[in-house]
């Protein structure tokens, strides 16, 4: 349960970027959450609500973009969602694929009034 501290970090970042953009009201915050980032989406949404309540960000929406694990084949560059992290490329059969997405936990955008 580290979602409360993650919610606080999201709010801090949103506030900082809103201030850099003329201090406008934040309407929506976009965050990318990788499949193996270890973040529980329901808990994060709950904690975000608690964190912004009765603050300048009260009412801002949190838009979470789920980023599935994606592998890229080293031989043929085909990208695919692996089954249980198996690196075997479904296109060419080589086994040298590596993870290119799925472990991120990043800010994506802000929608400002």
């Amino acid at each position, binding site marked *: 349960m580290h979602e409360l501290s*993650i919610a606080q970090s999201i709010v801090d970042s949103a506030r900082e970027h809103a201030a850099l953009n003329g201090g406008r009201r934040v309407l929506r915050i976009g965050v990318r959450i990788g499949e193996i980032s270890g973040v529980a989406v329901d808990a994060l949404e709950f904690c975000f609500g608690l964190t912004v309540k009765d603050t300048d960000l009260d009412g801002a929406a949190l838009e979470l973009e789920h980023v599935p694990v994606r592998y890229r084949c080293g031989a043929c560059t085909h990208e695919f969602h692996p089954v249980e992290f198996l690196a075997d490329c479904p296109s060419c059969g080589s086994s040298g694929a590596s993870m290119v997405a799925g472990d991120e936990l990043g800010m*994506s955008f802000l929608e400002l009034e």
Partner: protein
Amino acid sequence: MTERVEVREGVLKENDRIALELRERLAASGTLCLNLISSPGAGKTSILEGTLEALRPTPLRIAVLTGDIQTERDADRLKRYGFPALQITTGGTCHLDASMVKRSFATLPPDALDILFIENVGNLVCPASYDLGEDAKVVVLSVTEGDDKPLKYPGIFRRARLMLLHKIDLLPHTRFSRDAAVADARRVNPGIEVVETSCLAEPGLGAWLRWIDGQLAIKRGAGRPARG
């Protein structure tokens, strides 16, 4: 009129900033920093006790920061080996973050260290997200936990440089498959190194101590493991 502003940065950038500060400070003093992560009860504290006992006769300067939700018990256990050991009591938080480590590190004696061990809060999920300025995360998987953990908790196995297969002496009494555990850990992290350990029986902690020795040599820029 609403405007959309792209923000491309990590959510935990403040943690990452403090971690970078710690990493630079540890680099300046040539200190190897290892962050041990496992489930509760996997054996982190016992491994550290055995490690400190083995390294006590060496000239290495060592300190330990140990995180738990409650109690000073781990620090009390680890202090018996003559090295500074500080407890970080998180009071409920399920992981250590860089600011906790920075505060605790600041209260250590100011002497330069060769090794700083950080024992994280027992948890295979949350600690994986937080950079503490370490050179390497070390994940401890004890054989009594089951060989399915690397695929169930891929985040930590992906970020760890080393996996300790611990309590390996109990292997004959479990259904744990070391081949499956290693193969699965390498699915999520092809570069992960694996060392087998036991605090109570053969093979002991020798391979782990040699791994540390190798990391120390790399940290000091020697490029090859020291003898001894």
